[in-house]
Protein backbone atom coordinates (compact mmCIF):
# COMPACT_ATOMS: atom_id res chain seq x y z
CA UNK A 1 0.00 0.00 0.00
CA UNK A 2 1.31 3.41 -0.91
CA UNK A 3 2.49 5.38 2.10
CA UNK A 4 2.02 8.78 0.60
CA UNK A 5 1.34 10.42 3.94
CA UNK A 6 4.24 8.98 5.85
CA UNK A 7 6.89 11.38 6.93
CA UNK A 8 8.88 8.63 8.55
CA UNK A 9 12.46 8.78 7.43
CA UNK A 10 14.50 5.74 8.23
CA UNK A 11 17.68 7.72 8.63
CA UNK A 12 17.09 8.50 12.30
CA UNK A 13 17.70 4.97 13.56
CA UNK A 14 14.02 4.73 14.25
CA UNK A 15 12.74 1.79 16.16
CA UNK A 16 10.05 -0.34 14.61
CA UNK A 17 6.70 -1.78 15.63
CA UNK A 18 8.40 -4.87 16.99
CA UNK A 19 10.26 -2.73 19.51
CA UNK A 20 7.16 -1.11 21.06
CA UNK A 21 6.36 -3.81 23.58
CA UNK A 22 9.92 -3.72 24.85
CA UNK A 23 9.67 0.06 25.23
CA UNK A 24 6.42 -0.33 27.13
CA UNK A 25 8.00 -2.93 29.39
CA UNK A 26 10.59 -0.37 30.41
CA UNK A 27 7.72 1.72 31.82
CA UNK A 28 5.52 -0.98 33.29
CA UNK A 29 8.00 -3.66 34.26
CA UNK A 30 5.73 -6.23 32.67
CA UNK A 31 6.86 -8.57 29.94
CA UNK A 32 3.34 -9.20 28.79
CA UNK A 33 0.75 -6.45 28.62
CA UNK A 34 -2.93 -6.70 29.19
CA UNK A 35 -5.32 -6.03 26.33
CA UNK A 36 -6.38 -2.75 27.95
CA UNK A 37 -2.84 -1.43 28.27
CA UNK A 38 -2.22 -1.95 24.58
CA UNK A 39 -5.68 -1.03 23.25
CA UNK A 40 -4.36 2.09 21.54
CA UNK A 41 -1.02 0.65 20.44
CA UNK A 42 -1.81 -0.34 16.87
CA UNK A 43 -3.85 2.77 16.08
CA UNK A 44 -1.24 5.14 17.50
CA UNK A 45 1.55 3.29 15.73
CA UNK A 46 -0.28 3.30 12.40
CA UNK A 47 -1.02 7.01 12.76
CA UNK A 48 2.61 7.91 13.38
CA UNK A 49 4.05 5.35 10.93
CA UNK A 50 1.71 5.80 8.00
CA UNK A 51 -0.74 8.69 8.37
CA UNK A 52 0.41 11.74 10.32
CA UNK A 53 2.55 14.36 8.61
CA UNK A 54 4.63 15.15 11.66
CA UNK A 55 8.34 15.32 12.24
CA UNK A 56 10.24 15.61 15.52
CA UNK A 57 12.53 18.11 13.82
CA UNK A 58 9.65 20.42 12.95
CA UNK A 59 7.47 20.43 16.06
CA UNK A 60 6.20 23.96 15.40
CA UNK A 61 5.54 23.50 11.67
CA UNK A 62 2.14 25.19 11.17
CA UNK A 63 1.32 22.70 8.40
CA UNK A 64 1.95 19.61 10.53
CA UNK A 65 -0.88 17.25 11.39
CA UNK A 66 -2.09 17.42 14.99
CA UNK A 67 -2.61 14.28 17.05
CA UNK A 68 -4.68 14.82 20.20
CA UNK A 69 -4.73 11.92 22.64
CA UNK A 70 -8.03 12.74 24.31
CA UNK A 71 -8.15 9.40 26.11
CA UNK A 72 -5.16 10.38 28.20
CA UNK A 73 -5.05 7.45 30.57
CA UNK A 74 -2.84 4.45 29.82
CA UNK A 75 -0.37 6.53 27.79
CA UNK A 76 2.43 3.94 27.76
CA UNK A 77 1.70 2.93 24.17
CA UNK A 78 1.72 6.60 23.15
CA UNK A 79 5.02 7.25 24.90
CA UNK A 80 6.50 4.13 23.31
CA UNK A 81 5.51 5.33 19.84
CA UNK A 82 6.85 8.84 20.53
CA UNK A 83 10.14 7.25 21.57
CA UNK A 84 10.24 4.94 18.58
CA UNK A 85 9.62 7.84 16.23
CA UNK A 86 12.24 10.13 17.72
CA UNK A 87 10.06 12.66 19.56
CA UNK A 88 11.40 11.67 22.98
CA UNK A 89 14.55 9.90 24.06
CA UNK A 90 13.81 6.21 24.78
CA UNK A 91 16.13 6.57 27.79
CA UNK A 92 13.53 8.68 29.65
CA UNK A 93 10.91 5.92 29.54
CA UNK A 94 12.54 4.13 32.46
CA UNK A 95 11.69 7.01 34.81
CA UNK A 96 7.99 6.85 33.91
CA UNK A 97 5.88 8.63 36.56
CA UNK A 98 8.78 9.28 38.91
CA UNK A 99 9.33 12.71 40.45
CA UNK A 100 12.00 13.69 37.94
CA UNK A 101 10.19 12.38 34.85
CA UNK A 102 8.17 14.46 32.37
CA UNK A 103 6.11 11.32 31.68
CA UNK A 104 3.10 10.98 33.95
CA UNK A 105 0.09 8.71 33.87
CA UNK A 106 -1.58 11.42 31.82
CA UNK A 107 0.43 13.36 29.23
CA UNK A 108 1.35 17.02 29.78
CA UNK A 109 1.95 18.99 26.58
CA UNK A 110 4.14 21.50 28.39
CA UNK A 111 6.60 18.80 29.38
CA UNK A 112 6.80 16.39 26.44
CA UNK A 113 7.98 17.34 22.93
CA UNK A 114 5.42 16.46 20.29
CA UNK A 115 2.51 16.09 22.71
CA UNK A 116 -0.13 18.49 21.39
CA UNK A 117 -2.61 18.47 24.30
CA UNK A 118 -2.54 17.72 28.00
CA UNK A 119 -5.22 15.18 28.73
CA UNK A 120 -6.50 12.79 31.35
CA UNK A 121 -9.94 14.11 32.21
CA UNK A 122 -12.16 12.35 29.69
CA UNK A 123 -14.16 14.30 27.18
CA UNK A 124 -11.93 17.33 26.68
CA UNK A 125 -10.07 16.44 23.47
CA UNK A 126 -12.71 16.50 20.77
CA UNK A 127 -13.78 20.10 21.35
CA UNK A 128 -10.11 21.10 21.47
CA UNK A 129 -9.72 19.31 18.15
CA UNK A 130 -12.62 21.27 16.65
CA UNK A 131 -11.05 24.54 17.76
CA UNK A 132 -7.69 23.54 16.37
CA UNK A 133 -9.25 22.44 13.07
CA UNK A 134 -11.20 25.69 12.78
CA UNK A 135 -7.98 27.62 13.41
CA UNK A 136 -6.10 25.64 10.79
CA UNK A 137 -8.86 26.41 8.31
CA UNK A 138 -8.76 30.13 9.11
CA UNK A 139 -4.97 30.04 8.69
CA UNK A 140 -5.16 28.11 5.38
CA UNK A 141 -2.87 25.49 6.93
CA UNK A 142 -2.42 22.06 5.34
CA UNK A 143 -2.63 20.51 8.80
CA UNK A 144 -5.26 17.98 9.78
CA UNK A 145 -6.42 17.03 13.27
CA UNK A 146 -6.74 13.47 14.58
CA UNK A 147 -8.36 12.97 18.00
CA UNK A 148 -8.07 9.59 19.70
CA UNK A 149 -10.86 8.70 22.11
CA UNK A 150 -12.15 5.62 23.88
CA UNK A 151 -15.60 4.03 23.87
CA UNK A 152 -15.76 4.52 27.64
CA UNK A 153 -14.76 8.13 27.19
CA UNK A 154 -17.81 8.58 24.96
CA UNK A 155 -19.92 8.30 28.11
CA UNK A 156 -18.93 11.90 28.88
CA UNK A 157 -21.65 14.26 27.64
CA UNK A 158 -19.13 16.84 26.48
CA UNK A 159 -18.27 14.52 23.58
CA UNK A 160 -21.82 14.63 22.34
CA UNK A 161 -21.76 18.42 22.29
CA UNK A 162 -18.58 18.21 20.26
CA UNK A 163 -19.81 15.45 17.91
CA UNK A 164 -22.81 17.61 17.02
CA UNK A 165 -20.76 20.77 16.56
CA UNK A 166 -18.14 19.13 14.33
CA UNK A 167 -20.79 17.48 12.18
CA UNK A 168 -22.98 20.53 11.83
CA UNK A 169 -20.07 22.87 11.09
CA UNK A 170 -18.76 20.36 8.52
CA UNK A 171 -15.19 20.26 9.76
CA UNK A 172 -13.51 18.22 7.04
CA UNK A 173 -10.00 18.32 8.44
CA UNK A 174 -11.07 16.59 11.65
CA UNK A 175 -10.87 12.84 12.25
CA UNK A 176 -11.92 11.12 15.48
CA UNK A 177 -10.64 7.63 16.20
CA UNK A 178 -12.63 5.77 18.83
CA UNK A 179 -10.87 2.78 20.34
CA UNK A 180 -13.71 0.39 21.14
CA UNK A 181 -12.62 -2.10 23.77
CA UNK A 182 -16.11 -2.44 25.20
CA UNK A 183 -15.31 -0.43 28.31
CA UNK A 184 -18.41 1.76 28.28
CA UNK A 185 -20.41 1.07 31.43
CA UNK A 186 -23.85 1.13 29.84
CA UNK A 187 -22.81 0.32 26.26
CA UNK A 188 -23.81 1.89 22.95
CA UNK A 189 -26.75 0.02 21.47
CA UNK A 190 -26.77 0.37 17.69
CA UNK A 191 -23.03 0.92 17.64
CA UNK A 192 -20.68 3.81 18.24
CA UNK A 193 -20.42 4.77 14.58
CA UNK A 194 -24.15 5.52 14.44
CA UNK A 195 -23.71 8.30 17.03
CA UNK A 196 -21.38 10.08 14.65
CA UNK A 197 -23.21 9.20 11.42
CA UNK A 198 -26.47 10.77 12.54
CA UNK A 199 -24.61 14.06 13.07
CA UNK A 200 -23.20 14.03 9.56
CA UNK A 201 -19.83 12.38 10.06
CA UNK A 202 -18.40 9.87 7.59
CA UNK A 203 -17.79 6.65 9.53
CA UNK A 204 -15.64 3.53 9.22
CA UNK A 205 -15.38 0.52 11.52
CA UNK A 206 -12.12 -1.39 11.48
CA UNK A 207 -10.18 -4.09 13.26
CA UNK A 208 -8.13 -2.05 15.69
CA UNK A 209 -5.19 -4.44 15.37
CA UNK A 210 -5.03 -4.48 11.57
CA UNK A 211 -2.66 -1.76 10.39
CA UNK A 212 -3.77 -1.87 6.76
CA UNK A 213 -7.43 -1.55 7.74
CA UNK A 214 -6.65 1.31 10.13
CA UNK A 215 -4.56 3.14 7.55
CA UNK A 216 -7.16 2.68 4.83
CA UNK A 217 -9.91 4.07 7.06
CA UNK A 218 -7.86 7.01 8.33
CA UNK A 219 -6.99 8.08 4.80
CA UNK A 220 -10.60 8.03 3.64
CA UNK A 221 -11.41 11.20 1.77
CA UNK A 222 -13.86 13.35 3.75
CA UNK A 223 -13.78 16.91 2.54
CA UNK A 224 -17.26 18.06 3.46
CA UNK A 225 -17.37 16.82 7.02
CA UNK A 226 -15.48 15.05 9.77
CA UNK A 227 -14.56 11.37 9.79
CA UNK A 228 -15.02 8.92 12.66
CA UNK A 229 -13.09 5.66 12.65
CA UNK A 230 -14.18 3.10 15.22
CA UNK A 231 -11.28 0.74 15.90
CA UNK A 232 -12.46 -2.42 17.59
CA UNK A 233 -10.02 -4.20 19.86
CA UNK A 234 -10.48 -7.22 22.08
CA UNK A 235 -13.83 -7.99 20.55
CA UNK A 236 -14.87 -11.62 20.34
CA UNK A 237 -15.02 -11.99 16.60
Amino acid sequence: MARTHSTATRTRNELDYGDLRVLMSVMTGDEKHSEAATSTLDVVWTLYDRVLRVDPDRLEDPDRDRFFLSKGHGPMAYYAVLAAKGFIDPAILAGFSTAESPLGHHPDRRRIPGVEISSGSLGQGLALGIGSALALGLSCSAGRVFVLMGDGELDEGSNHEAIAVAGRLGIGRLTAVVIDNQSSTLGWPGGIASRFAVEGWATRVVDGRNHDEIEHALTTTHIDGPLAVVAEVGRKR
Partner: protein
Amino acid sequence: MSETMRDRFTNVATDLLLADKKAVVVLAALGASSFTDAPSTVRSRIIDVGIREQAMIGVAGGLALEGFRPIVMSYTPFLVERPFEQIKLSLTHQGVHATLVSIGGSWDASTEGRTHQAPEDVAVMSTLPGWTIHVPGTSDEAEQALRLAHDSATSHYIRLSGDQNAASAHAQPGVITILRRGSDHGMTVLAVGPVADAVLEAVEGTDATVLYTNVPRPIDADGLRASVVGSEIVVVEPYLVGSSVPPVAAALSDRPMRIRAIGVTNPELAHYGTPRELRAAHGLDADGLRAALEHGIAQIAS
Protein backbone atom coordinates in the same frame (compact mmCIF):
# COMPACT_ATOMS: atom_id res chain seq x y z
CA MET B 1 -28.67 56.01 30.33
CA SER B 2 -25.39 55.59 28.61
CA GLU B 3 -24.61 52.68 26.31
CA THR B 4 -24.92 49.33 28.09
CA MET B 5 -21.77 47.35 28.78
CA ARG B 6 -23.18 44.52 26.69
CA ASP B 7 -23.70 46.75 23.64
CA ARG B 8 -20.24 48.22 24.09
CA PHE B 9 -18.84 44.70 24.24
CA THR B 10 -20.39 43.82 20.88
CA ASN B 11 -19.00 46.96 19.27
CA VAL B 12 -15.50 46.59 20.68
CA ALA B 13 -15.32 42.86 19.95
CA THR B 14 -16.28 43.64 16.34
CA ASP B 15 -13.54 46.27 16.26
CA LEU B 16 -11.03 43.72 17.53
CA LEU B 17 -12.15 41.18 14.92
CA LEU B 18 -11.58 43.78 12.21
CA ALA B 19 -8.20 44.87 13.52
CA ASP B 20 -6.71 41.50 14.46
CA LYS B 21 -6.91 38.44 12.22
CA LYS B 22 -6.13 36.26 15.23
CA ALA B 23 -9.17 37.53 17.12
CA VAL B 24 -12.07 35.09 17.27
CA VAL B 25 -15.39 35.28 19.11
CA VAL B 26 -16.82 32.02 20.44
CA LEU B 27 -20.45 31.89 21.55
CA ALA B 28 -22.99 29.32 22.72
CA ALA B 29 -26.10 30.77 21.06
CA LEU B 30 -26.39 33.56 23.60
CA GLY B 31 -25.23 36.84 22.11
CA ALA B 32 -25.05 35.49 18.57
CA SER B 33 -27.92 37.70 17.40
CA SER B 34 -26.03 40.82 18.46
CA PHE B 35 -23.31 39.98 15.92
CA THR B 36 -25.64 39.53 12.94
CA ASP B 37 -24.60 42.94 11.59
CA ALA B 38 -20.87 42.17 11.82
CA PRO B 39 -18.98 42.81 8.57
CA SER B 40 -18.80 39.80 6.27
CA THR B 41 -15.00 39.84 6.47
CA VAL B 42 -15.10 38.77 10.12
CA ARG B 43 -18.05 36.37 10.04
CA SER B 44 -15.83 33.30 9.77
CA ARG B 45 -14.27 34.28 13.10
CA ILE B 46 -17.57 34.43 14.97
CA ILE B 47 -18.20 30.83 15.96
CA ASP B 48 -21.53 29.84 17.49
CA VAL B 49 -21.61 26.26 18.76
CA GLY B 50 -25.22 26.39 19.88
CA ILE B 51 -26.28 25.88 23.49
CA ARG B 52 -23.19 23.82 24.33
CA GLU B 53 -21.00 25.60 26.85
CA GLN B 54 -18.50 22.79 27.36
CA ALA B 55 -17.87 22.78 23.62
CA MET B 56 -17.70 26.58 23.65
CA ILE B 57 -14.74 26.62 26.04
CA GLY B 58 -13.12 23.55 24.46
CA VAL B 59 -13.31 25.07 20.98
CA ALA B 60 -11.84 28.30 22.37
CA GLY B 61 -9.00 26.24 23.85
CA GLY B 62 -8.29 24.59 20.50
CA LEU B 63 -8.25 27.95 18.74
CA ALA B 64 -5.87 29.29 21.38
CA LEU B 65 -3.57 26.28 20.92
CA GLU B 66 -3.14 27.45 17.33
CA GLY B 67 -2.27 31.02 18.24
CA PHE B 68 -5.70 32.59 18.01
CA ARG B 69 -7.03 34.87 20.73
CA PRO B 70 -10.55 33.77 21.68
CA ILE B 71 -13.12 36.12 23.16
CA VAL B 72 -15.87 34.02 24.76
CA MET B 73 -19.12 35.54 26.00
CA SER B 74 -22.12 34.10 27.81
CA TYR B 75 -24.32 34.48 30.86
CA THR B 76 -22.25 34.33 34.04
CA PRO B 77 -23.33 30.88 35.30
CA PHE B 78 -23.12 29.32 31.83
CA LEU B 79 -19.70 30.82 31.15
CA VAL B 80 -17.98 30.22 34.48
CA GLU B 81 -19.78 27.50 36.40
CA ARG B 82 -21.18 25.00 33.92
CA PRO B 83 -17.92 24.56 31.91
CA PHE B 84 -15.58 25.26 34.80
CA GLU B 85 -13.50 22.14 34.24
CA GLN B 86 -13.02 23.13 30.61
CA ILE B 87 -11.74 26.53 31.74
CA LYS B 88 -9.36 24.78 34.13
CA LEU B 89 -8.15 22.10 31.71
CA SER B 90 -8.84 23.17 28.11
CA LEU B 91 -7.44 26.66 28.72
CA THR B 92 -5.30 27.04 31.84
CA HIS B 93 -3.81 23.54 32.02
CA GLN B 94 -3.00 23.62 28.30
CA GLY B 95 -1.00 26.79 28.93
CA VAL B 96 -3.17 28.85 26.54
CA HIS B 97 -5.20 31.98 27.07
CA ALA B 98 -8.55 33.56 26.35
CA THR B 99 -10.75 36.47 27.32
CA LEU B 100 -13.97 35.35 28.98
CA VAL B 101 -16.74 37.94 29.21
CA SER B 102 -19.88 37.41 31.25
CA ILE B 103 -23.19 39.20 31.48
CA GLY B 104 -25.82 38.87 34.18
CA GLY B 105 -23.55 38.80 37.20
CA SER B 106 -25.29 38.68 40.56
CA TRP B 107 -28.64 40.35 39.96
CA ASP B 108 -29.05 41.66 36.42
CA ALA B 109 -31.17 38.62 35.55
CA SER B 110 -33.53 39.51 38.39
CA THR B 111 -36.69 38.08 36.87
CA GLU B 112 -34.97 34.93 35.59
CA GLY B 113 -34.07 33.83 39.10
CA ARG B 114 -31.28 31.82 40.62
CA THR B 115 -30.49 29.76 37.51
CA HIS B 116 -29.27 32.88 35.72
CA GLN B 117 -27.36 34.41 38.61
CA ALA B 118 -23.80 33.61 39.67
CA PRO B 119 -22.53 35.84 42.47
CA GLU B 120 -19.97 33.04 43.04
CA ASP B 121 -18.15 33.75 39.76
CA VAL B 122 -15.30 35.86 41.13
CA ALA B 123 -14.60 33.39 43.92
CA VAL B 124 -14.67 30.47 41.51
CA MET B 125 -12.40 32.13 38.94
CA SER B 126 -10.04 33.13 41.75
CA THR B 127 -9.20 29.46 42.28
CA LEU B 128 -7.44 29.27 38.92
CA PRO B 129 -3.87 30.56 38.58
CA GLY B 130 -3.00 33.44 36.33
CA TRP B 131 -6.41 34.93 35.64
CA THR B 132 -6.97 38.68 35.80
CA ILE B 133 -10.51 39.44 36.97
CA HIS B 134 -12.11 42.66 35.76
CA VAL B 135 -15.26 44.16 37.27
CA PRO B 136 -15.70 47.35 35.22
CA GLY B 137 -17.88 50.09 36.64
CA THR B 138 -18.83 51.77 33.36
CA SER B 139 -19.00 50.94 29.65
CA ASP B 140 -15.80 52.90 29.08
CA GLU B 141 -14.04 50.83 31.71
CA ALA B 142 -15.44 47.66 30.13
CA GLU B 143 -14.02 48.74 26.77
CA GLN B 144 -10.64 49.45 28.36
CA ALA B 145 -10.65 46.06 30.02
CA LEU B 146 -11.55 44.21 26.83
CA ARG B 147 -8.89 45.97 24.76
CA LEU B 148 -6.24 45.47 27.45
CA ALA B 149 -7.17 41.80 27.80
CA HIS B 150 -7.10 41.20 24.07
CA ASP B 151 -3.67 42.77 23.68
CA SER B 152 -2.23 40.77 26.55
CA ALA B 153 -0.67 37.32 26.52
CA THR B 154 -2.57 36.18 29.60
CA SER B 155 -6.07 35.09 30.62
CA HIS B 156 -8.78 37.55 31.59
CA TYR B 157 -12.28 37.27 32.99
CA ILE B 158 -14.42 40.38 32.47
CA ARG B 159 -17.62 40.62 34.48
CA LEU B 160 -20.03 43.02 32.76
CA SER B 161 -23.01 44.39 34.63
CA GLY B 162 -26.18 46.33 34.08
CA ASP B 163 -25.27 48.82 36.80
CA GLN B 164 -22.90 51.63 35.93
CA ASN B 165 -21.27 54.40 37.92
CA ALA B 166 -21.85 57.97 36.77
CA ALA B 167 -18.16 58.52 36.02
CA SER B 168 -15.34 56.27 34.89
CA ALA B 169 -12.11 55.84 36.80
CA HIS B 170 -9.33 58.10 35.56
CA ALA B 171 -6.81 55.31 35.47
CA GLN B 172 -5.83 52.18 33.67
CA PRO B 173 -7.79 49.06 34.65
CA GLY B 174 -6.74 47.85 38.07
CA VAL B 175 -5.03 50.98 39.30
CA ILE B 176 -6.52 51.90 42.67
CA THR B 177 -7.92 55.42 42.72
CA ILE B 178 -9.20 57.60 45.54
CA LEU B 179 -12.85 58.59 45.09
CA ARG B 180 -13.22 60.35 48.44
CA ARG B 181 -10.73 61.49 51.04
CA GLY B 182 -11.87 61.19 54.64
CA SER B 183 -10.01 61.80 57.86
CA ASP B 184 -6.87 59.91 58.86
CA HIS B 185 -8.88 58.14 61.56
CA GLY B 186 -11.92 57.15 59.53
CA MET B 187 -12.47 53.81 57.88
CA THR B 188 -11.35 52.99 54.35
CA VAL B 189 -13.94 51.54 51.99
CA LEU B 190 -12.74 49.76 48.86
CA ALA B 191 -15.51 49.78 46.26
CA VAL B 192 -15.23 47.20 43.48
CA GLY B 193 -16.72 48.16 40.10
CA PRO B 194 -20.34 49.25 39.74
CA VAL B 195 -21.10 49.62 43.48
CA ALA B 196 -18.91 52.74 43.72
CA ASP B 197 -21.73 55.28 43.37
CA ALA B 198 -23.83 53.57 46.03
CA VAL B 199 -20.80 53.47 48.34
CA LEU B 200 -20.22 57.20 47.89
CA GLU B 201 -23.87 57.87 48.69
CA ALA B 202 -23.73 55.60 51.73
CA VAL B 203 -20.72 57.32 53.31
CA GLU B 204 -22.10 60.86 52.95
CA GLY B 205 -21.69 62.66 56.27
CA THR B 206 -18.98 60.29 57.51
CA ASP B 207 -15.20 60.62 57.57
CA ALA B 208 -14.66 57.52 55.47
CA THR B 209 -12.13 57.33 52.66
CA VAL B 210 -13.38 55.59 49.51
CA LEU B 211 -11.00 53.77 47.20
CA TYR B 212 -11.95 52.21 43.89
CA THR B 213 -10.76 49.29 41.82
CA ASN B 214 -12.16 47.49 38.80
CA VAL B 215 -9.64 44.64 39.02
CA PRO B 216 -10.08 42.75 42.31
CA ARG B 217 -7.56 40.11 41.25
CA PRO B 218 -4.69 40.62 41.19
CA ILE B 219 -5.22 43.64 43.40
CA ASP B 220 -3.06 46.75 42.96
CA ALA B 221 -1.21 46.06 46.22
CA ASP B 222 1.10 49.07 45.98
CA GLY B 223 -1.80 51.41 45.26
CA LEU B 224 -3.82 49.95 48.09
CA ARG B 225 -0.96 50.25 50.58
CA ALA B 226 -0.30 53.82 49.51
CA SER B 227 -3.88 55.03 49.83
CA VAL B 228 -5.45 53.07 52.68
CA VAL B 229 -6.05 55.09 55.88
CA GLY B 230 -7.13 54.23 59.41
CA SER B 231 -7.21 50.81 60.99
CA GLU B 232 -10.28 49.38 59.25
CA ILE B 233 -10.91 48.56 55.59
CA VAL B 234 -14.27 47.44 54.25
CA VAL B 235 -14.38 45.74 50.86
CA VAL B 236 -17.68 46.29 49.06
CA GLU B 237 -18.05 43.73 46.31
CA PRO B 238 -21.09 43.16 44.07
CA TYR B 239 -20.73 39.37 44.28
CA LEU B 240 -20.30 36.67 46.92
CA VAL B 241 -19.12 38.34 50.13
CA GLY B 242 -15.48 37.74 50.92
CA SER B 243 -14.46 36.81 47.37
CA SER B 244 -11.97 39.69 47.19
CA VAL B 245 -10.78 39.64 50.79
CA PRO B 246 -7.77 37.30 50.34
CA PRO B 247 -5.81 39.56 47.96
CA VAL B 248 -6.67 42.63 50.08
CA ALA B 249 -5.58 40.82 53.26
CA ALA B 250 -2.36 39.72 51.59
CA ALA B 251 -1.57 43.26 50.45
CA LEU B 252 -2.05 44.57 54.00
CA SER B 253 -0.72 41.55 55.89
CA ASP B 254 1.98 43.50 57.72
CA ARG B 255 -0.47 46.06 59.12
CA PRO B 256 -2.69 45.75 62.18
CA MET B 257 -5.91 46.28 60.27
CA ARG B 258 -9.40 44.98 60.63
CA ILE B 259 -10.78 43.80 57.30
CA ARG B 260 -14.49 43.47 56.62
CA ALA B 261 -16.45 42.64 53.49
CA ILE B 262 -19.90 43.56 52.31
CA GLY B 263 -21.31 41.59 49.39
CA VAL B 264 -23.90 39.00 48.45
CA THR B 265 -24.52 36.85 51.52
CA ASN B 266 -27.36 34.69 50.23
CA PRO B 267 -27.19 33.58 46.58
CA GLU B 268 -30.38 31.59 47.13
CA LEU B 269 -32.36 34.70 47.95
CA ALA B 270 -35.68 34.04 46.25
CA HIS B 271 -36.67 37.47 45.01
CA TYR B 272 -37.78 38.72 41.59
CA GLY B 273 -38.54 42.25 40.50
CA THR B 274 -36.17 44.67 38.85
CA PRO B 275 -32.38 44.39 39.11
CA ARG B 276 -32.51 47.45 41.34
CA GLU B 277 -35.00 45.75 43.65
CA LEU B 278 -32.99 42.53 43.80
CA ARG B 279 -29.81 44.44 44.51
CA ALA B 280 -31.60 46.24 47.35
CA ALA B 281 -32.84 42.89 48.67
CA HIS B 282 -29.20 41.79 48.80
CA GLY B 283 -28.52 44.93 50.86
CA LEU B 284 -26.18 46.40 48.29
CA ASP B 285 -27.97 49.64 47.43
CA ALA B 286 -26.96 52.86 49.24
CA ASP B 287 -29.39 52.29 52.13
CA GLY B 288 -28.23 48.73 52.66
CA LEU B 289 -24.58 49.70 52.45
CA ARG B 290 -25.06 52.54 54.93
CA ALA B 291 -26.60 50.15 57.44
CA ALA B 292 -23.92 47.52 56.90
CA LEU B 293 -21.08 50.04 57.21
CA GLU B 294 -22.53 51.38 60.45
CA HIS B 295 -23.26 47.90 61.76
CA GLY B 296 -19.56 47.14 61.84
CA ILE B 297 -19.84 43.37 61.90
CA ALA B 298 -18.28 41.20 59.24
CA GLN B 299 -20.66 39.37 56.94
CA ILE B 300 -20.26 35.85 55.77
CA ALA B 301 -22.15 34.00 53.09
CA SER B 302 -25.04 32.11 54.65
